[in-house]
């Protein structure tokens, strides 16, 4: 088996007897052996990156097969569900695959970030510049108003946890960060319900199907890669440098804000914010060993990554990962495969989102050096009433130490040549040991406080599939898979808090008196049983039809509603081949390929666990008396024993064209998704005696187009240029809400000072911003008070849509001899950002928006008490800025458009002849720049921001710039070698 162009031997190529599941792969020398029932069979040969070929044996016993490289991405094998491999041309829905080189060259520790700009219709928002920051992924908008809209992550056939656990001011990592990118062979993005139907309800928002590396038959090889990285703060907001500390224009060394007099010439103006950040250092080492014999293959890897942060203390992310994968044949019709990985992920981080957090410099008067954070007696020195950020990052750390195992075992059994049975059992289990303490002397806990919590999370999945296939009349191929699937989620969170340290210098829960310790425990259990069927039928490998159906039984729904069925149907026609078959040859160099596809799917979804009944609790909040006994638990959702499953319906059609001798490929998709009768966790009128309730109701529509353009403009032996573009536009709108609700508010996304939050608005966007505004009359004119000042409305209003108008990416890959240069532009047009960071600056008097202080202004509006038009000029003073201007959220909504050079990688492979005398078979050096260029009109740090991290469900917290660690730009130097 060789490459038709280069003649290189191809290892790992799949060979399957057409119409059966029987097959093999080529070894390290490109050879294969396959026992066939007759010498009249046809072999189907496929390999990632090459065009698929059908080879009729025609009586030969030895075949010399030359595979033509695939010129543009498109016609390849992809994993559709549970390890089922399908050709993309047979699919009636959009699917996109990203291969390992594209992932590795982004140098992103978080696998989610590695996909940025690479996949059409996928919006990825990293939440900030802290190492280990969570990243949120949305595929084609969102389908849920209140629960998680992120796709399902599947690794080697089993769903894994990608949750983000944390508080608004200290969001954790999204747990897919535990996956070592170097272990990944490919990632397939299943975009819609049609694609994901077999995975069941959790894939209703799409799925990210990750396949890890396997060994190949032949000599064992060792791969080693090493990277060192340096990062600096990307941008920092501009602070005013004209006025110093004080109140109402008068200097006051005890004042917390910069409302004092102007700096005199010669006085020092400190750059407290800029000085706070350092250059960070990261190193990453990956080593793997792989190989195999004809019957057994193995892959083993180890990886160490130590990532530093731009904040000096308690800002790091370390990941040590190990993986072992092996498979073996036991007899002619049985194959066993196992993969196990163990990861330790340790993160140190600091609080954000408030004056006492990491961005406290936004509040610090610039006549004072924030770096002097200790008093002479060793206690904290602060002048803002909040913790000094230098002191706080040392003395208020968050720790999260995760140990995680993912273990999958598979059995492939072919009892007959027409029947394959696959059984897979896998588990993903982790323990996240967390600690957060605030040392004695912290502003919010003068006596000190410590919280230890332990999260145990386990997802266990069992899948049985029975497949059979048959060919009729040499033209109709069928394949039927019947499957059974069980999924179990068990999660527990144990938490202990102690406050008031006896010895101020020993941060441990044993160092508080027993009355000052509290504990709590929370368990979650969910069970799901599914049965599914997948039926493929095609005519001459040109016209494809697929039917799918799945029935789920869920533990989380009422017994009589717990069983629900959902079907999907999709079709694909390779028009060029069909026309050819029918005698109309439209195929030529100009237009070589046309495929049309369409699908309709429905996917059901169950409820969150344990919400069918009201519960009792013993805790309230800090504004309400301790009950000292059981009370109605209004912190939880009002129980609903009549919930039904929710369903999402979607249809999609698309086309795939290839022109100019396959130098240009165009893929187009249109889709529309509607989710009705949502299981909606919503806020209720307080008179219902609850704050929150789960209901069936509400409807969301997502509609959009995706265009992918793959080009290969230059294709010469020494010089090669590929250019891939993707474009996507999604509109997520709320069609209906239950009762008379006009919005669904997400209090988990409150920005600092509660001026704005994420909300979904009926007849409006899913990703809206709900903010405080100035009062207006029905004509939209300001209602002013008697002095002529605006007034803050008590009711929040819609002030912007965070969903981008469109998103896109452009990746160029040039190779010249053994040099390669690739770079990705990531574009996001439109989409509003709420700049709570600027809002904080206004409050502290450091915003350049406050430079009009001392001037007067006549607000255009109506004096409310008289109804007459205002003519009075009012003073724009400290009170105006802090109590009126800062409470007009519209002033802080900005356009989030960006054009970003996401990464650029230059690599050089040492030519093989120079390595001849070395025990090295390949050696490559590279340098990568991340986030080097950012063009945006956004005034803050970076419009790619997510205030409360990826853990916020529903409309999420992306688009909220909320005093987090600023995004960074960095450079990586590395080498890869193979022995």
């Amino acid at each position, binding site marked *: 088996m060789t490459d038709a162009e280069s003649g290189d031997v191809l290892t790992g190529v799949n060979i399957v007897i057409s119409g059966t599941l029987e097959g093999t792969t080529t070894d390290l020398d490109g050879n294969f052996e396959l026992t066939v029932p007759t010498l009249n069979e046809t072999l189907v040969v496929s390999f990632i990156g090459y065009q698929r070929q059908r080879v009729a044996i025609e009586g030969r016993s030895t075949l010399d097969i030359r595979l033509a490289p695939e010129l543009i991405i498109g016609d390849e094998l992809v994993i559709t569900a549970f390890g089922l491999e399908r050709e993309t041309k047979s699919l009636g829905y959009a699917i996109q695959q990203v291969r390992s080189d594209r992932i590795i060259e982004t140098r992103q520790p978080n696998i989610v970030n590695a996909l940025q700009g690479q996949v059409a219709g996928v919006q990825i928002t990293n939440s900030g510049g802290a190492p280990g920051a969570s990243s949120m992924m949305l595929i084609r908008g969102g389908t849920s108003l209140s629960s998680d809209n992120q796709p399902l992550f599947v690794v080697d056939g089993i769903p894994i946890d990608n949750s983000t656990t944390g508080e608004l001011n200290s969001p954790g990592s999204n747990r897919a960060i535990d996956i070592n990118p170097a272990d990944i062979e490919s990632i397939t993005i299943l975009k819609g319900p049609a694609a994901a139907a077999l995975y069941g309800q959790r894939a209703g928002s799409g799925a990210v199907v990750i396949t890890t590396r396997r060994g190949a038959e032949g000599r064992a090889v060792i791969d080693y890669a090493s990277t060192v990285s340096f990062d600096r703060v990307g941008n920092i907001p501009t602070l005013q440098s004209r006025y110093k500390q004080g109140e109402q224009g008068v200097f006051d060394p005890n004042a917390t804000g910069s409302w004092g007099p102007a700096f005199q010439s010669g006085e020092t103006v400190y750059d407290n914010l800029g000085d706070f950040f350092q250059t960070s250092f990261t190193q990453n080492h990956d080593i793997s060993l792989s190989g195999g014999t004809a019957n057994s293959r193995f892959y083993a890897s180890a990886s160490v990554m130590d990532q530093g942060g731009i904040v000096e203390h308690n800002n790091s992310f370390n990941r040590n990962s190990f993986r072992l994968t092996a498979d073996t044949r036991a007899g002619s019709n049985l194959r066993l495969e196992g993969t196990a990985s163990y990861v330790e992920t340790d993160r140190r981080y600091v609080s954000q989102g408030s004056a006492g957090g990491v961005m406290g410099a936004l509040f610090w008067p610039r006549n004072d050096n924030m770096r002097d954070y200790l008093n002479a007696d060793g206690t904290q020195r602060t002048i803002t009433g909040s913790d000094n950020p230098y002191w706080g990052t040392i003395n208020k750390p968050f720790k999260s130490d995760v140990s995680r195992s993912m273990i999958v075992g598979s059995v492939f059994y072919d009892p007959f040549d027409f029947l394959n049975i696959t059984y897979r059992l896998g588990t993903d289990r982790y323990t996240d040991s967390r600690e957060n303490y605030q040392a004695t002397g912290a502003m919010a806990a003068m006596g000190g406080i410590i919280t230890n919590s332990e999260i145990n999370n386990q997802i266990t999945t069992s899948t049985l599939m029975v497949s059979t296939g048959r060919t009729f009349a040499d033209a109709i191929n069928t394949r039927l898979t019947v499957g059974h699937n*069980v999924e179990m989620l068990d999660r527990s969170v144990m938490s202990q808090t102690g406050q008031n340290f006896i010895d101020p210098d020993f941060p441990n829960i044993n160092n508080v008196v027993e009355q000052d310790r509290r504990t709590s425990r929370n368990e979650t259990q969910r069970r799901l*049983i599914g049965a599914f069927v997948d039926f493929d039928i095609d005519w001459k490998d040109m016209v494809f039809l697929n039917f799918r159906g799945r029935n789920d039984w869920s533990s989380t729904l009422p017994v009589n509603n717990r069983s629900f069925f959902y079907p999907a149907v999709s079709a694909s026609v390779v028009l060029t081949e069909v026309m050819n078959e029918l005698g109309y040859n439209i195929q030529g160099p100009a237009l070589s390929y046309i495929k049309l596809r369409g699908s309709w799917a429905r996917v059901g979804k169950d409820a969150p666990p344990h919400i069918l009944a009201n519960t009792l*609790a013993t805790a309230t909040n800090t504004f309400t008396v301790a009950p*000292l006994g059981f009370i109605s638990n209004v912190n939880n959702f009002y129980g609903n024993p009549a919930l039904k499953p929710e369903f999402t319906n979607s249809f999609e059609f698309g086309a795939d064209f290839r022109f100019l001798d396959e130098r240009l490929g165009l893929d187009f998709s249109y889709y529309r998704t509607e989710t009705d009768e949502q299981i909606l966790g919503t806020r209720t009128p307080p008179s219902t005696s609850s704050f929150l309730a789960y209901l069936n109701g509400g409807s969301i529509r997502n509609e959009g187009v995706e265009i992918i353009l793959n080009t290969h403009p230059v294709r010469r032996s020494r010089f090669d240029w590929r250019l891939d573009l993707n474009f996507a536009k999604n509109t997520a709108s709320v069609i209906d809400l239950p009762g008379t609700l006009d919005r669904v508010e997400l209090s988990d996304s409150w920005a600092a000072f509660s001026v704005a939050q994420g909300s979904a608005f009926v007849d409006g966007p899913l990703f809206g911003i709900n903010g405080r505004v100035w009062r207006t009359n029905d004509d939209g004119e300001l209602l002013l008070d008697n002095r002529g000042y605006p007034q803050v409305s008590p009711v929040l209003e819609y002030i912007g849509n965070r969903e981008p108008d469109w998103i896109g990416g452009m990746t160029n890959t040039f190779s010249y001899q053994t040099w390669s240069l690739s770079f990705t532009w990531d574009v996001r047009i439109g989409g509003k950002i709420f700049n709570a960071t600027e809002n904080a600056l206004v409050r502290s008097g450091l915003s350049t928006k406050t430079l009009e202080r001392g001037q007067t202004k006549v607000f255009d509006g109506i004096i409310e008490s008289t109804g007459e038009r205002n003519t009075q000029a009012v003073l724009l003073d400290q009170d105006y800025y802090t109590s009126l201007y800062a409470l007009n959220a519209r002033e802080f909504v900005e356009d989030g458009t960006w054009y970003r050079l996401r990464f650029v990688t230059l690599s050089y492979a040492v030519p093989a002849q120079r390595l001849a005398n070395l025990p090295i078979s390949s050696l490559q050096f590279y340098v990568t720049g991340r986030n080097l260029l950012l063009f945006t009109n956004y005034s803050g740090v970076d419009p790619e921001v997510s205030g409360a991290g990826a853990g916020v469900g529903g409309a999420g917290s992306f688009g909220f710039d909320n005093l987090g660690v600023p995004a960074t730009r960095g450079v990586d130097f590395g080498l890869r070698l193979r022995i």
Partner: protein
Amino acid sequence: MKNKHLKIGSILLLVLFLGSACEDFLSVNDNPNLPSQVPPENRILGAIRTSNGASMWRGTREVSAVMQYGVTRNTTGAFWNAETWRFTSAYFFWQNAYTWALPNAVDLIRLGEEDGSPHFVGVGKTLQALNFGMLADQFGAIVVSDSYDGISQVNLTPGFDPQDEVYETIIRILDEAIAAFRQAENNTPINRTGGDVLYQGDIEKWERFAWSLKARYLNHLSKKSNLYDPAAIIEAATNGFNADGMDAEFNYSAGSLQTEENPWYSWGGFVNVDNPRFFTWSQFFVDLLTKFPVTENEYQDPRISRIMQPASSDGEYRGLRPGMGLAGGQGGSGEFTNPEDYGRFSNSGFYTQIDSPMPFITYSEVKLIEAEARLRSGDVPGALAAFEEGVRANMRKLGVAPTEIEDYWAALVADGVSSHFTNLTNGLSHIMRQKYIALPLNPEIWVDMRRMDYSQSIYGPSLQRPANLNTIIFSETDETDWIRAMVYEGNEEVRNPNNVPPNTPAIRLRSRVWWDTAE
């Protein structure tokens, strides 16, 4: 071929096996962390405490500024806004009553019925009536018929009942509570697990509590000449508290949680340790404690030293003028602008210490209600006698020495209280000013002030509208333009818009509730 059948058969068996045993496997949805139901004896403590420390507390937190008990130090901020009637729909008594308090009272009724324990039904109904009463008195129309019943599914758009119907319901619920307390058959004693922190299982006292509330709510109808029934009030008062030691209250405590403490002392009275909600008491309250009604003759009520602390600078009792802050000086005079010229509000005396109770209703209040009813029905001697007992009971409660009580009463008599009672306004002035002194920080006082139309002939010349008041809504010049009701909570307005009555502050704050209008 046989082998083939065997294989197919075993596969089918395996599928069948996996398909069965589903039901048990899926039965894991009961909440493992929290119970859905516990016996009523384990609910009574939470029901009492939340009615007090959630509902009544939030019903008085801002209203205490309206009633002019406390005054903030600054002339900006949320507390000052309340003091100067800048209320918006961000006033949260509503949710604290409906979510934290009421469902516990309702559950107690349902659990008591299921358990064959009518005494729990009585407790639940008494607390339910109290919560509805406090709500109706601040908002007017409220959600009653469509409110939580412990059985139905959540109703996203509950309707509002007019206040006159709410009052009928309150009286009916109290009658049902009284009937429940009178039932001899009761399965589970209400204090089985020590949860009855009001009366330790003494059902007779509970019944008197219900009667006392009935007297209070009937007495609210004083402007409704067609409904006001002094005889019914006197009957209810007579069946209500009749001795010291019956007040419906429990002591807060220095527990392991700060929210076990009296809220005025700590968690509710402060933003942080440096920023108390109220800096000191008002000069109006100081005046009531240092001057007699009607004559305005000076006499220092011995209770002043139990309720307040004197200034650390010179030992005098001083207060501020609402709306002017510390800078406004004593009573707004501009004199005494030093913080040390004032005793502090928090931790200053009987009502704001760590363990101070927040009485729902007291023996003293019941006697003063009786005095009002008797006075209005022309029974002057009876009114005077009830009045005297109401005053003395409160002084005894505050630990005033018997000789001081005798001296105070003698001075009051010498000042002409008996003759004042022959005039309705003067008699009411005595009663209302004593109620103000006897029920500090209780939202019931706001009901009185509105029933009395904030009249200076009742409360004395010291009662004035706050300085710097909200002139967008209230007249700058008309001194009779006072705040009359509260704005419904924005969460209700936004989520239940078709049922909430018109809710702009300009309408709500000046709209009189039903009993505040004649007929």
